[in-house]
């Protein structure tokens, strides 16, 4: 494989290290130090994609993050696919596999190309906008067509095997960009002892210095870069991040950086290493030294491969030893771009002409071009490029002084490359991320950062200070300012002497006129990636869009991954002219994070797979796993759901667990219940304020159930609280509500009633809680304790300290099943010991472990509610038929009391919780089913409430259910109907929710 455009020497590539890569199925060779883009250009690959809308062939136009066309799908295997990679930012490595994102079936022979030729008419600007206004069915037709044609890259279909992670960083100064300004700033800050992070998107530090022929102190600039990098690497508190794109600048100097660790060197990360790392940086000060992007000029057919940004051509020559053509036409409105013609000429290739829009260009580079005998055509512009898959020639015409009309005959010239420059646009994206509006600077014909509330400084080309001399000086002074703010002392930094360059005055030129009006001229592209043309912007303005933000949305200019890096200023200039305004009057659209696309892998980091979300385990978890439990997620807890045996179905397991518990004894791991230790002389008063019922007289040794409401009077949690001592209580909460309840208690204590002497401490994790329930639970407990647990000594709702299986325990005689129950609490490190001991003695009682589902069934048989299942934030205790749990007589107006007395809360016909007894005892109502009183009523039927809990009860050999019915508590015995999606209508009788043992005789034994 020949690299036909590669120079014999020069550049920062290592010609001794050839690397083979595959592009669109074909093998090529490049060198270490290449980017994918430079290697493709070296190999003479002209077409790297098809355009989004018109499917026109496109080539590489730039050399950095601003590249709009060379958007690649990279990855050697399905699992390692990465979409939307800029070829200009992807380091070449051996074995790299890349393909064009757009182009179907292939970029060279694109069936869509035909459509593209007519597609211009079919898809005008505002296409999406207009399409959306038509019937939705039309959009769906278009969408599949567009998606297929556009091919916006694709995600891998297999799991990415690589590690992406995140790291939190803090520093005194972060410097974004390691060009001359950034390096000078870093050196200044580092020498003063500051904690510095310097990040740059390129694989090497140096920025523009790496791709220019400039001398510093009379030596190649890269030597100074190497010296600075070497010195920086000696400081412990300097973190240097090459291959790292600062993608977002967020509030309070928080920046996000995507670091390419190994994906710049290999398709897959070596074992254990991190492919990409996302740095989350909090910086005391930020120095933006992000440089500038050169603006191409807008002219006819300016998207034909071979049309490039001038400075990019220089970069390929100087940095990569690649001359991307033979015959160059350079079009410029400024002196700076002359360097490209000089570089091209010095590489031994032919400069056809420099076409300068100005009448009388003067300055250092102009003189140099004249010395080399390069033809300069002044007062002229390239109005059109010729060719389809590669530039074959150009049309050049004289322009008027304003540069907006052709004023003379067209000259055609043969050429294969057109480099253009309309000046430089400071890279202000990051400074805009925090909402700062940029301001127009007429001297440099570009926007520069505006005022900001962030602790942000800027240096170099971002300020419009385009010379190396200025950049170095501003780097030092920005760092010095930061040091002053930080109270640190600047040490001496001696800057190298840059060459003195005489720059002439540039001309404000954006859009090259054609002999035809813009709407009839060959397409003049402003935004390559989104296929936005000058005529499209003019059309938008003609159609009445006056705000640049609207023009952007109408045309799609600066959309997507491009974020207007190359095209925005040209687009605004064209709009401004149409609107008879200046550019600052027209304003600019705002740039948003991210600067370039970030992989989902980097965003997700390690929060995936087993680490996606914490799984919380109780002390008996290993036992449940061994026993084959199926688990249910309750918040972050993994709770046993049921314990299937053999080939049991879920329902069979539940039936067995339910029957065994009511017949003999079952055991539940209830450790996940929230537990809060409450101490202080005002603990009792506090409980009275946060619960709806009375606590003033609960004696030591007793437990009581309580409902907790919000100020709106709606139930949000419930649980049993026990009086451990006069000023000492243990509150339990629902498993999912533990953290919320603790916060609830704290916010009231801290903000409303700080005078109350009370402290709350979470002890959820400290106690393992196991509930033995069933007629034989006492007998089982007696096997493990010497304590007298008889009814006489330990009544229902008593708690007692005792020793269980040798472990000190607090045992609560409370019941959520309606059976005789003991809730055994032991220090969690001994939970497993006691649990196993219970099973050692449980065999004769057929001790059966049961999970959350059986717990739900057993409590539903008893009509006990579950906060969060039978409540939804819109029901108060009276709706639940739980007036017994509300004491309106308490002296303090408890939380929820006033709320539940609002007009809406006391009206007739509120939805109330009732039991639902299906007429067909075998029919189990689906939870969530909506009830109606007349199933024959016309649709939409008036709905009266939904089913909240519904189960098959093996103990009762029928279904049991609870649900809301409007005015249900006064409708006992009446019928309600549940029409289901499958056409069935289940009929149920409204009844008490207590299906089993209404007198409570089973638990009170």
């Amino acid at each position, binding site marked *: 494989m020949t690299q036909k455009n590669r120079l014999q020497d020069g550049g920062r590539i290592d010609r001794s290290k050839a690397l083979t890569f595959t592009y669109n199925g074909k093998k090529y060779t490049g060198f270490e130090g290449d980017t994918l883009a430079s290697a493709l250009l070296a190999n003479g690959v002209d077409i790297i994609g098809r355009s989004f809308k018109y499917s026109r062939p496109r080539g590489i136009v730039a050399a950095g993050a601003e590249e709009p066309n060379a958007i690649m799908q990279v990855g050697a295997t399905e699992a390692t696919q990465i979409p939307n990679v800029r070829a200009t930012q992807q380091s070449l490595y051996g074995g790299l596999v890349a393909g064009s994102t757009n182009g179907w079936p292939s970029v060279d022979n694109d069936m869509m190309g035909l459509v593209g030729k007519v597609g211009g008419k079919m898809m005008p600007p505002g296409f999406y906008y207009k399409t959306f206004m038509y019937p939705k069915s039309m959009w769906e037709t278009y969408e599949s067509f567009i998606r297929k044609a556009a091919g916006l890259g694709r995600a891998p279909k297999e799991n990415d095997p690589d590690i992406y992670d995140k790291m939190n960083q803090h520093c005194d100064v972060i410097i974004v960009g390691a060009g001359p300004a950034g390096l000078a700033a870093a050196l200044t800050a580092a020498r003063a002892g500051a904690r510095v992070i310097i990040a740059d998107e390129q694989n090497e530090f140096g920025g523009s210095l790496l791709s220019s022929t400039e001398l510093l102190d009379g030596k190649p600039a890269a030597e100074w870069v190497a010296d600075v990098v070497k010195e920086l690497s000696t400081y412990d508190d300097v973190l240097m991040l090459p291959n790292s794109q600062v993608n977002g600048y*967020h*509030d*309070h100097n928080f920046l996000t950086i995507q670091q390419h660790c190994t994906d710049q060197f290999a398709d897959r990360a070596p074992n254990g290493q991190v492919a990409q790392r996302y740095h989350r940086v*909090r910086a005391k000060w930020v120095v933006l030294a992000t440089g500038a992007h050169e603006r191409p000029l807008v002219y006819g057919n300016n998207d034909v491969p071979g049309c490039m940004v001038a400075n990019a051509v220089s970069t390929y020559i100087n940095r990569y030893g690649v001359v991307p053509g033979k015959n160059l036409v350079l079009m410029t409105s400024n002196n700076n771009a002359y360097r490209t013609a000089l570089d091209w000429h010095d590489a031994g290739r032919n400069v056809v002409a420099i076409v300068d829009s100005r009448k009388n260009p003067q300055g250092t580079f102009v003189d140099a071009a004249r010395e080399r005998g390069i033809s300069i055509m002044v007062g002229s512009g390239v109005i059109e490029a010729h060719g389809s898959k590669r530039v074959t020639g150009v049309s050049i015409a004289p322009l008027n002084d304003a540069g907006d009309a052709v004023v003379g005959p067209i000259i055609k010239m043969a050429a294969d490359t057109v480099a253009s420059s309309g000046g430089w646009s400071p890279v202000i994206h990051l400074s805009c991320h925090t909402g700062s509006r940029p301001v127009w600077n007429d001297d440099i014909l570009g926007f520069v950062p505006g005022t900001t509330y962030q602790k942000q400084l800027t240096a170099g080309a971002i300020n419009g200070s385009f010379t190396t001399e200025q950049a170095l000086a501003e780097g030092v002074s920005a760092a010095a300012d930061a040091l002053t703010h930080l109270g640190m002392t600047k040490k001496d930094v001696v800057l190298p002497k840059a060459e003195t360059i005489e720059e002439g005055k540039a001309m404000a030129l954006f859009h090259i006129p054609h002999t035809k009006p813009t709407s009839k001229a060959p397409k003049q592209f402003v935004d390559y990636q989104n296929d936005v043309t000058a005529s499209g912007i003019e059309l938008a303005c003609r159609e009445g869009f006056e705000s640049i933000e609207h023009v952007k949305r109408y045309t799609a200019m600066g959309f997507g991954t491009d974020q207007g890096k190359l095209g925005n200023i040209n687009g605004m200039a064209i709009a401004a002219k149409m609107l008879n305004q200046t550019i600052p009057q027209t304003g600019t659209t705002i740039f948003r994070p991210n600067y370039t696309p970030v992989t989902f892998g980097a965003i997700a980091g390690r929060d995936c797979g087993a680490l996606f979300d914490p799984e919380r385990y109780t002390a008996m978890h290993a036992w449940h796993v061994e026993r084959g439990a199926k688990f249910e997620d309750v918040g972050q807890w993994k709770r046993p759901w049921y314990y299937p045996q053999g080939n049991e179905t879920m329902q069979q397991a539940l039936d067995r667990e339910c029957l065994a518990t009511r017949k003999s004894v079952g055991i539940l791991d209830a450790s996940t219940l929230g537990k809060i230790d409450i101490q202080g002389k005002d603990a009792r008063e506090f409980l009275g304020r946060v619960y709806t019922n009375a606590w003033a007289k609960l004696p030591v040794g007793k437990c009581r159930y309580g409902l907790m409401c919000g*100020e709106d009077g709606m139930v949000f949690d419930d649980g049993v609280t026990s009086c451990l001592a006069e000023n000492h209580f243990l509150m339990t909460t629902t498993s999912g509500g533990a953290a919320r309840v603790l*916060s609830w208690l704290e916010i009231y204590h801290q903000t409303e009633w*700080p005078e109350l002497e009370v402290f709350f401490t979470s002890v959820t994790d400290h106690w393992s809680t196991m509930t033995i329930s069933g007629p034989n639970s006492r007998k089982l407990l007696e096997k493990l304790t010497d304590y007298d647990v008889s009814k006489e000594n330990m009544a229902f709702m008593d708690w007692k300290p005792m020793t269980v299986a040798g472990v000190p325990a607090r045992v609560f005689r409370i019941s959520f099943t309606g059976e005789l129950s003991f809730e055994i609490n032991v220090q969690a490190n001994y939970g497993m010991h006691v649990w196993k001991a219970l099973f050692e003695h449980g065999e004769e009682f057929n001790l059966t472990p049961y999970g959350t589902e059986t717990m739900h069934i057993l409590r539903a048989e008893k009509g006990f509610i579950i906060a969060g299942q039978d409540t939804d934030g819109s029901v108060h205790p009276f709706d639940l038929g739980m007036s017994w749990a509300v004491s309106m007589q308490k002296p303090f107006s408890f939380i929820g009391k006033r709320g539940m007395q609002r007009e809406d809360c006391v009206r007739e016909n509120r939805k109330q919780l009732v039991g639902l007894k299906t007429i067909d005892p075998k029919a189990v109502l689906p939870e969530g089913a909506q009830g109606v009183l007349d199933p024959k009523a016309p649709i939409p039927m008036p709905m009266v409430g939904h089913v909240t809990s519904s189960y098959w009860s093996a103990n009762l050999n029928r279904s049991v259910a609870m649900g809301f019915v409007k005015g249900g508590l006064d409708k006992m015995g009446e019928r309600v109907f549940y029409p289901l999606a499958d056409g069935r209508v289940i009929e149920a009788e409204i009844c008490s929710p207590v299906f089993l043992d209404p007198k409570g005789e089973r638990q009170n034994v």
Partner: protein
Amino acid sequence: MFHIYCPHCCEYREEEEFHAAGQSHIARPLDPDACTDKEWGEFMYFRANPRGIHHELWVHAAGCRKYFNVTRDTQTYEINEVYKVGEQPTVVANAIQSK
């Protein structure tokens, strides 16, 4: 991502350690039962939504678990001051702005 000074821990911490808990200085009526439905509704549901200076209650949820007040500019996201529960802000919107 805010950087918030906790007045109890006496240092800046990352926003992910904190939770916002709504508008500050909304005192629970001392005698809720005496409130009309309108007064109660205003206490419950009506909150300021200013463009500019705003006083917010935050809690250092992952840290000291203490609630405190933050004066924040809703336009620039600048935090002007933090102060403890029971204290009054020193940075306040002027009357014209708050209208």
